């Protein structure tokens, strides 16, 4: 493992070690580029990962203060991680490519009132070779000749009901969870705690794949417990380094040739806004005024059904089950874009009583809780439309322990999102009833794990924050390297696309460095 000097201004500084930052760091290190990764959270090992939902939630989550507004929970607007490996420690592993038309939503859907739709500056074909590389890197099932996972009980209920109501594109998904030993990691043992961290490393996470590989090159250093508070720049407007608070609470500056921000879609715009200066009064890379805007969280919801026999939905890979039939764009359904239906458990006890019917109580509900064994569940994830008013700003009143304003996150559904969710609730209810459900509970979103769009890619500098490589329009040695880049959310779980974009960005950065352009 390398150990770089803080005054070394030849390094690339990457802020964050998750899907975007962790992947980008390894890709650059493999090419011989020197990388310092600053990660706000601590570094855990597999031994720290327990099969306990509550304990792992407290260990992994970003619980520093944030303010939720609109329809978000005030105390916890999003469910994302503060740990080395970022949200790849928590993610379920669903790895779906965006569809061709989803890169061109404005052209495909046309103007939608209240939505800030735009086409991505890149196409599916630009990203396709990088999707191949990402799937090989992550060992994604159902791609590259790798078999799909076997279906658990929860999947079998989903599949049966799906076929009964006429769906045909139903399988155990493209999961970055090993169906056979791969890349030095074991095959899935159907443990059932994917989202609390995979205790055996069968699920891809940068924590135990990209990071150790990067460290082995001698070109890479990750500094855990290092919270970046500001990005510095010189008189010409180029960034020169970052200010961070280390684990002892001391303020440090790391010099840099290039800075890449991958703090997830809430912290990334917060950092740019907190880096405002005399030269960049509205925040760094914000001449468009789009930093923090178009915050997307996917249209989500969950459905829990009481089946006539035992399911034990906590057994097995949590999200290895998908229905893709509704992911198409078919305006006759009354909304633009589409959605996926994916298996999800209820996260045990006290999870099931808490979330099947939030706030529920009384004899009838208690009787369903007693029949927990018979419960089956699915999660709805669909495209939500970008809205300028859905937005991350700096809280005028709340500061973190370093004295920096925290993120204020505002989000409300677009009518398109509501129409899509209602359609998904109807279809899911029909599906479970076709499989014999005695009762079906539908519930509104959990705090979002999919966060996108607050520093979006755009062809024109006035419409977004960065170009098709994630390079900011205003500052050419500053990059956005996470899901904040997404121009639109598409229907698919975002991680695979974040990884593919990071691999592509690494090629571009290395090339630009060789050409001495940055």
């Amino acid at each position, binding site marked *: 493992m390398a150990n770089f000097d803080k005054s070394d201004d030849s390094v690339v500084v990457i802020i964050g070690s998750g899907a975007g930052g962790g992947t980008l760091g390894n890709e650059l290190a493999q090419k011989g580029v020197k990388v310092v990764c600053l990660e706000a959270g601590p570094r855990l090992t597999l031994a720290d990962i327990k099969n306990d939902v*509550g304990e792992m939630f407290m260990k992994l989550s970003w619980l520093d203060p944030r303010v939720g507004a609109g329809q978000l929970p005030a105390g916890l607007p999003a469910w994302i991680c503060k740990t080395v490996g970022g949200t790849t420690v928590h993610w379920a592993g669903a790895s779906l490519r965006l569809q061709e038309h989803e890169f061109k939503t404005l052209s495909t859907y046309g103007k939608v009132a209240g939505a800030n739709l735009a086409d991505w500056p890149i196409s599916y074909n630009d990203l396709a070779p990088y999707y191949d590389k990402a799937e090989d890197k992550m060992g994604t099932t159902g791609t590259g000749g790798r078999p799909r996972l076997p279906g658990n009980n929860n999947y079998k209920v989903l599949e049966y009901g799906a076929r009964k109501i006429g769906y045909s594109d139903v399988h155990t998904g493209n999961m970055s969870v090993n169906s056979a030993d791969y890349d030095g990691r074991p095959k899935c043992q159907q443990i059932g705690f994917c989202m609390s961290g995979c205790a055996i490393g069968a699920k891809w996470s940068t924590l135990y794949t990209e990071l150790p590989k990067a460290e082995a090159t001698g070109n890479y250093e990750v500094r855990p417990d290092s919270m970046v508070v500001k990005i510095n720049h010189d008189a010409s407007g180029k960034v020169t380094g970052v200010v961070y608070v280390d684990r002892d609470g001391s303020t440090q500056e790391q010099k840099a040739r290039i800075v890449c921000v991958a703090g997830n879609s809430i912290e990334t715009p917060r950092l740019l806004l907190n880096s405002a200066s005399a030269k960049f009064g509205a925040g760094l890379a914000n001449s468009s005024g789009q930093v923090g805007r178009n915050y997307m969280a996917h249209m989500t919801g969950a459905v829990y059904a009481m089946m006539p026999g*035992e399911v034990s939905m906590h057994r097995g890979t949590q999200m290895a089950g998908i229905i893709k039939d509704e992911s198409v764009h078919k305006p006759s359904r009354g909304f633009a874009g589409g959605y996926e239906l994916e298996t999800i458990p209820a996260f045990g006890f006290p999870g099931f*009583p808490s979330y099947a019917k939030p706030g529920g109580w009384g004899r009838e509900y208690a009787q369903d809780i007693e029949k927990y064994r018979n419960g089956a569940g699915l999660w709805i994830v669909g495209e939500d439309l970008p809205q300028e008013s859905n937005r991350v700003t700096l809280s005028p009143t709340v500061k973190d322990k370093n004295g920096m304003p925290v993120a204020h996150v505002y989000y409300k559904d677009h009518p398109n999102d509501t129409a899509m969710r209602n359609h998904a609730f109807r279809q899911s209810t029909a599906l479970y009833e076709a499989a014999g459900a005695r009762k079906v509970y539908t519930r509104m979103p959990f705090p979002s794990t999919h966060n996108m769009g607050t520093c979006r890619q755009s062809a024109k500098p006035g419409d977004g924050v960065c170009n098709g490589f994630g390079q900011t329009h205003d500052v050419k040695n500053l990059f956005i390297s996470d899901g904040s880049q997404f121009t639109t959310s598409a229907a698919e779980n975002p991680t695979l696309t974040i990884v593919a974009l990071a691999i592509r960005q690494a090629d571009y950065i290395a090339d630009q460095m060789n050409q001495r352009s940055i």
Partner: protein
Amino acid sequence: MQDDFELTRRQFLKLGGDAFFLSLVLGTGLAPFARPAFAGEMKVLSDSDAKTLLAVSRTLFPHDNVEDGYYMNAVAAIDAKCESDAKTRDMVKQAIGKLNGSLGKPYAEASEAARTDLLKSMEKSDFFALAYGETLNNLYGNPEIWKMFGYEGSSVEHGGYLERGFDDINWLPQS
């Protein structure tokens, strides 16, 4: 860490986070330990108070085959909060007064329908939030109860479910 946890829990209670996460935060430190049915004594609440709170917990989540002791863990948790915070104690005492003074007989002796209706009218109160949260977490956070209702807890030490029935469903018609 303990301080962080307390801060987070207060923050959640104050800001009214999603019940999903409220339960995760409240449940921390409770969930991993199977606790036997409670058989101790109250610290600040009277036996009569405890009887009323027990009836509240049983009205919230009535499981006829679960003995009182498992619900009493929730009552004991409320008692502990009353001991550490005078405001909470006053709030709980006042609610108990209302519960016992509204039905023409002690709350615990009223019919389930009457108990349910009265509790329903108090759903927006701080007392309800406290009783609800503590019952959810102390009753359903107890691994003895998990076993009863079929949640199997940690599985990695048993090799997961690969050889233990992850796909053993037997009632679905063959499609």
